[in-house]
């Protein structure tokens, strides 16, 4: 595997800061960062929390920012390469991180790797996604120009989530006769066959 990390001045600086962090607090910071790793637009800590962290970790604002960014970067890189623990450990050691800090990062990564990669895999660039499916089956008993009819009809409701606008949850509502529903099912079956053909 290629080298994940190159030693840049800012990483050097970050490594110095991280090495000075209290051993007991560092895993907690990492665990928060990895939990939020898959979220695109969210920072791992709120402003309030960052202020408190500055005090408990005894860091300047800029240094704290650097530490958080660097840890994020480590974990992002580990995820990007789906790094094996030994490889991650070896590459972190090359940055001259203390062993206990390397342990903390590797442990955090191995503990949550599967989860994080799974979440990153399902991250897409499409704004609209199918979210839920509801249906209802009716039996039509009459109509203005048809008495005593017995016509089943199926209603399908598809909930579509829109990433761009949280409030704008769209619902597509459709109605099918038996034949129409059967045709729709056949199309889904064709897609399924394509998916089965992938592996």
């Amino acid at each position, binding site marked *: 595997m290629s080298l994940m990390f190159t030693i840049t001045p800012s990483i050097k600086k970050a490594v110095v800061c991280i090495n000075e962090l209290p051993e007991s607090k560092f895993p907690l910071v990492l665990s928060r960062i990895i939990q939020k790793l*898959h979220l695109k637009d969210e920072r791992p800590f709120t402003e309030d929390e960052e202020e408190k962290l500055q005090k408990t970790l005894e860091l300047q604002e800029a240094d704290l920012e650097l530490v958080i960014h660097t840890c994020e970067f480590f974990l992002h890189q580990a995820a990007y390469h*789906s790094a094996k623990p030994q490889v991650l450990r070896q590459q972190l050691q090359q940055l001259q991180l203390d062993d206990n800090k390397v342990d903390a990062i590797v442990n955090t990564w191995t503990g949550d790797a599967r989860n994080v990669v799974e979440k990153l895999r399902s991250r*897409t660039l499409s704004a609209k996604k199918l979210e839920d499916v509801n249906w209802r089956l009716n*039996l039509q008993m009459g*109509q203005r120009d048809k*008495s005593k009819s*017995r016509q089943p009809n*199926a209603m399908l409701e598809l909930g579509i989530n829109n990433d761009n606008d949280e409030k704008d949850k769209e619902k597509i509502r459709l109605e*099918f006769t038996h034949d129409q529903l059967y045709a729709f099912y056949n*199309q889904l079956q064709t897609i399924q066959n394509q998916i089965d053909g992938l592996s």
Partner: protein
Amino acid sequence: MEKELFRKLLSGVMEVIDGKSKEGSNILSNLVNETHNEENLAIVFSGLYSLVKLARKHPHGTLKQQILKEDLQELKIPAAFIPDISAAVFSSSDIDPTENGPSLPRLSNLQWRLDVAISTSSLNRVLEPTINMEMCLSNGKIHNFEVPIAKFHELRYNVAALLKEMEDLETRNILKIQV
């Protein structure tokens, strides 16, 4: 009234009922002659229209030809015209029941595409399939959205379940469904 004129009128009525033609007045003005003015024709036309509409309202198969014949005789419809009316009623051109009456939009076209993501900015090997769907609805709206693979299974499962319920419903004898 001559049989030929009557037949033309009746076929005009059927066109309107089946939704093939929306304007009865054109048909009428074409048929005006020395003995029948437009007003007269309009009366016959609307009478026939109501007659066929009412007869057709009965569910398929429950109206007997003999009964219709007797009813028409009772209304003093000339015997020569009865077979024609009866044929029109029972022709029951299988118009799609879904085209009449209120309804939610129908799915008129479904386009789809199956993608497998190879790499992204956050993972160099993803290999995750996703489906893009474009649904064209009968009300003219077009919806584009993505279906993650887990949601696709959910959709397929639900449609299959719904289809099965529908089949069960139709085979249940007590409901006597005519399809």
